[in-house]
């Protein structure tokens, strides 16, 4: 009973936050509410028995998306300050019926799927049995790297492609996102000195624990990216124009290593991307974490390179 009450509260909260995000007056408030929506989604994932998704949603869905939206909003405001005052909504007689129809469609599909009698030999069942002897205790990481490895490889490629596309569209930003040469507040240095090492520790833990417990390369990469975003915000790292060698290496490391190992196993007669052992899983996950973190930080900074800023 209390379980259902908690679910009802979370569900109602999600709906209310989504509604306020859409129809609220101020855009800035919309971004804040969207971040709160993401955090509530993380709670919902935890309730649905998906702690991996809860971690990913809190770090990537709420954290990184929110940071990217805020920085884009700031660029809009910088171009013309009266951003929030724009007429936000327009009237449409079709909107409500179409929305109700779409929602009902999703409800019917979902309830129909729930009502279907399940085949005992579904993919998940087979995976759960096969994974017990692979040494990966976390089934999600197992599925991502052993069964859907091509998807995971392409996912890293999509992230890189999004970065390259954003750079191409955006060009080099003459008004850089962090205002440079601002005097740093003393407390911020102390905070960074504690938070950044701790974040690296947490990211490493998420990465290593990802083979047994909730966690993995994507969550770890997003957490690592958060410390990078902090450093950019504090001006310790500053956007640089050209793509220098180490950020470029960081961007492509995951993709390169994954493809190299995936191709190399073919020389030994194994199928494409069949990982030779747990060591390869750890190696690839580490490389992917670094690439994901680097891509996200550079997307946030709106630049193709980073240089050390004056503290």
């Amino acid at each position, binding site marked *: 009973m209390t379980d259902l009450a908690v679910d009802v509260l979370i569900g109602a909260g999600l709906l209310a936050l989504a509604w306020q995000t859409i129809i609220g007056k101020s855009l800035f408030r919309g971004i804040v509410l969207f971040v709160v929506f993401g955090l509530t989604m993380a709670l919902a994932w935890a309730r649905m028995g998906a702690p991996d998704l809860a971690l990913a949603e809190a770090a990537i869905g709420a954290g990184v998306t929110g940071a990217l939206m805020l920085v884009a909003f700031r660029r809009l405001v910088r171009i013309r300050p009266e951003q929030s005052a724009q007429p936000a909504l327009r009237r449409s007689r079709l909107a409500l019926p179409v929305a109700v129809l779409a929602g009902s469609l999703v409800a019917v599909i979902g309830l129909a799927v729930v009502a279907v009698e399940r085949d005992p030999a579904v993919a998940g069942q087979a995976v759960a049995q096969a994974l017990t002897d692979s040494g990966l205790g976390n089934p999600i990481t197992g599925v991502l790297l052993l069964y859907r490895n091509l998807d995971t490889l392409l996912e890293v490629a999509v992230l890189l492609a999004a970065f390259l596309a954003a750079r191409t569209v955006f060009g080099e930003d003459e008004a850089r996102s962090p205002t440079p040469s601002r005097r740093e*507040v003393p*407390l*911020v240095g*102390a*905070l960074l000195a*504690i*938070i950044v090492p*701790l974040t690296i520790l947490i990211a490493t833990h998420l990465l290593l624990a990802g083979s047994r417990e909730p966690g993995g390369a994507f969550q770890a990469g997003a957490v690592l990216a958060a410390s990078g975003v902090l450093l950019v915000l504090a001006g310790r790292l500053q956007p640089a124009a050209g793509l220098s060698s180490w950020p470029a290496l960081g961007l492509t490391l995951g993709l390169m290593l994954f493809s190299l190992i995936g191709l190399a196993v073919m020389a030994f007669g194994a199928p494409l991307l069949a990982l030779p052992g747990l060591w390869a899983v750890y190696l690839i996950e580490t490389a992917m974490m670094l690439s994901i973190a680097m891509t996200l930080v550079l997307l946030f900074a709106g630049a193709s390179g980073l240089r050390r800023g004056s503290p």
Partner: protein
Amino acid sequence: MSTTEVLAAALLLAGGLFYLAGTVGLLRFPDVYSRLHALTKADNLGLLLVCSGLSLLAGSWRAAALLGTIWLLGLLAATVSAHLIARHARARHFNGGEQ
């Protein structure tokens, strides 16, 4: 219910009350400084109470240590962000803008 559970429930309830007070303060207080005051003071105490209640319920030193770390990190983040917001508000005040 054992004594530990009663104590934990009392701590959780007290923590919830402090959160409620902090949120009411955030919504009702007139300016940035008093809002920050309500938010950081009441919510940090609320977090401490909730964390101690939960560590009583968890019943292991590892969980208690993790919850304690969460409280310390929350304290740290609240301190620095409150400082930055107040500083920003003050700078704008002196430059002739309102909060």
